[in-house]
């Protein structure tokens, strides 16, 4: 069966139709959980396993706010293994290389299913090699919230790494030795999982305005260490010095300027990569020169945005995850640094998700095709190297979505006739900025009208591909295997593409 983008998908799934097809549907909500009894405090994970009666076939969820420093996922996995429990589905908002111990559990079928928004490292490799029994499901950040609240993703137990817990069982990411800042991605798990366990290494008397309200919490388990907060650092954290990256960043800002998007009261989101940081740096300079103040910046928040908040260049930060410790500190100290949940961030069925209020978003790509479809899930051989995260959510919500990418990476053209895997549909991608030209989606005639009157190097996406081919030659076609190992689920729950076993 093929979906509307012409991608082969599994039979008996909902095929992707368009990025705004969800407007024809109504929001589905299962009942929120409530705990009638007070929170039970436990001394070990073993105790929790005994009380929770964890058994074969359950779905267990985790968040990824401690990113590559998380220790809770591995601890729970180790306990599953020790107890001989099988056929577990892991619903983690993301999985990182430090979760490598899960590979053995995938191979011995302790873990048979994974639902996640982003995955790289050894687990991604093992799944690519076909070791995961059930199909991998790759969601978006907003889509995961939708899946949980609608019951499409039913969570039996949520193990929530919680940097601080008070005596009533409220939790927070602000305090403690493993403070990671906001913990927005776990809010749907908290509210809809059948059982909720806060895993913590720091107890405090009382938390004012906790992100995790005790009314949803069943158990608190005190452990030695939930993670290493240094591991939360995402991206490079440094503005790129690569001259090609800087050229792309400069041209991106020229586009933003030409479209008059940098004006009083604007809103933006960028990533944590070196080019994105350079874009923010250039935008910041324009804001200072022209005395412009932004209304808000959102998404994963970096120290760079914290500087802008503290220098009054931006009014509010809407933070779903902190990308560095400076952001975590700011969230703790600054009332204008506001935590949001995954749903408030990008759930398509939320009434006003933050992504819908963005004037522009700057995103990356591993591949872009002539229909402007973007792949950030696999490399060109089909190996999983990431996932949407908030890519598809922000691309749909923002008024202008820009992709910044080198035209060639390691001599490989990034513009292709067809991407290896569609993560974000081309209808939501407006502008591609490369070092050798800027392509505008023909659907955005308004942008073409404005930008064609400037001196910016505007070209067609076909021209960009030809330029890449002229420099590096036409790459040989690589045929993926025909053995599906999973699928990419668009934010509305439809299936946008299939993932295949690596040859």
């Amino acid at each position, binding site marked *: 069966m093929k979906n509307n983008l012409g991608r082969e998908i599994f039979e008996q799934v909902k095929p992707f139709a368009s990025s705004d097809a969800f407007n024809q549907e109504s929001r589905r909500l299962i009942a929120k959980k409530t705990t009638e009894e007070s929170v039970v405090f436990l001394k070990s994970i073993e105790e929790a396993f005994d009380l929770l009666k964890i058994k074969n076939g359950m779905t267990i969820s985790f968040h990824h706010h401690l990113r590559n420093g998380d220790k809770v996922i591995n601890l729970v996995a180790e306990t599953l293994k020790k107890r001989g429990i099988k056929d577990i589905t892991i619903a983690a908002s993301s999985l990182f290389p430090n979760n490598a111990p899960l590979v053995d559990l995938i191979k011995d079928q302790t873990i048979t299913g994974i639902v996640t928004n982003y995955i790289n490292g050894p687990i991604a490799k093992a799944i690519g090699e076909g070791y995961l029994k059930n199909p991998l499901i790759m969601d978006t950040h907003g889509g995961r919230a939708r899946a949980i609240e609608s019951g499409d993703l039913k969570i039996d137990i949520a193990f929530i790494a919680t940097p601080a817990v008070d005596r009533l069982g409220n939790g927070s990411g602000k305090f403690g030795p493993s403070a990671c800042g906001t913990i927005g991605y776990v809010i749907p798990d908290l509210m809809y999982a059948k059982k909720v366990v806060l895993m913590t290494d720091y107890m405090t008397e009382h938390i004012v305005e906790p992100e995790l309200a005790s009314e949803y919490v069943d158990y608190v388990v005190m452990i030695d260490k939930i993670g290493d907060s240094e591991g939360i650092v995402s991206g490079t954290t440094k503005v790129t*010095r690569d*001259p*090609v990256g*800087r*050229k792309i960043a*400069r041209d991106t800002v020229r586009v933003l300027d030409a479209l008059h998007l940098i004006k009083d009261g604007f809103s933006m989101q960028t990533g944590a990569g070196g080019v994105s940081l350079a874009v923010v740096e250039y935008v910041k300079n324009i804001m200072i020169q022209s005395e412009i103040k932004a209304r808000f910046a959102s998404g994963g928040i970096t120290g760079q945005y914290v500087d802008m908040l503290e220098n009054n260049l931006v009014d509010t930060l809407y933070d779903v995850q902190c990308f560095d410790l400076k952001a975590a500190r700011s969230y703790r100290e600054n009332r204008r640094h506001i935590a949001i949940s995954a749903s408030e961030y990008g759930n398509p069925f939320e009434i006003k998700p933050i992504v819908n209020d963005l004037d522009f978003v700057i995103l990356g790509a591993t591949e872009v095709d002539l229909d402007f479809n973007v792949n950030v899930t696999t490399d060109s051989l089909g190996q999983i190297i990431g996932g949407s995260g908030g890519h598809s959510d922000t691309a749909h919500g923002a008024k202008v979505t820009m992709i910044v990418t080198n035209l060639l990476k390691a001599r490989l053209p990034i513009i292709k006739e067809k991407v290896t895997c569609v993560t974000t549909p081309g209808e939501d991608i407006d502008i591609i900025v490369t*070092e*050798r030209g800027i392509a505008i989606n023909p659907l955005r005639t308004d942008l073409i009208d404005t930008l064609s009157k400037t*001196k910016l190097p505007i070209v067609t996406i076909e021209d960009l591909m030809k330029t890449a081919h002229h*420099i590096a030659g036409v790459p040989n076609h690589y045929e993926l295997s025909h053995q599906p190992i999973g699928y990419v689920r668009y934010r509305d729950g439809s299936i946008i593409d299939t993932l295949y076993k690596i040859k």
Partner: protein
Amino acid sequence: MHRSYLFIPGNHPAMLQNADIFGADAIIFDLEDAVSINEKDSARQLIKAFFETLQKPKFSIYVRINGLNSSLGSIDLNMVMNEIVEGIVLPKATVSDIKMLSKLLDTFENARRIKKKTVIIPIIETAKAVFEIGQIAQLPRVSALLLGAEDLTGDMEIERTKQGIEIEYPRAKIAFACKAFEIEAIDTPFTDVTDDEGLEKDALHAKSLGMNAKCAIHPNQIEIINKTFTPTMVAIDEALRIVKADEEAQKVHRGVFSLNGKMVDKPVVDRAKKLLIKAKHFGMVEDIDEK
């Protein structure tokens, strides 16, 4: 007319490939100091192949060859001489070296039927060259003088500082000589590639002495150099007002007039006209017209 000259090592394929995206007005493909003796051959071949595939470059192409005091310099010329090459950058130049290079260029141009006259940019990086600046600037084919402060201060056995007081004299002397003989004065590179503020300060100082371009040793320096040596919009607006007021004054046969309380005479008008020529060359006047 150039603002920026970017050195690219001849043995660096990735940088050659991206030469057209850095925004430099001119690129100097280097076969001398940036290329070790073991890599000279491969660098020459790489540059040769690159020139043969380059289509309609948006920048002027120069090659820094090795000095003519060994056979390396002439081997370089033999490999890279091509219609696409605007000029040869000659290290440790002296009057006699430049004359020798000019003769070699005559030979190559005739043999390869290169129609245009390949220019020479001598690098002033010895005390002797500083002494000969006046002569060098007048030699045929010489289109610019480039100050090489690192080698020059080495030759002088003096400390090279970020402030650059030690190169004040050669900077000024080059600027005057170039102005006198209507060629470009190219300032020495700023070697701390991570110090953007220092680069801007250094470039502004060179400009204030009369230099009209500056070398870069990293692509990230180009943006600041181009900005420094491009007339500002404020200066362009002022120049436009002066030229317009002059046109009105000419109609009533007045050589001197007042504009915004300041006296304007011929030198002021000439300066404004020169600035507008430069602004037009760098596409700035069109911007004003569009507004």
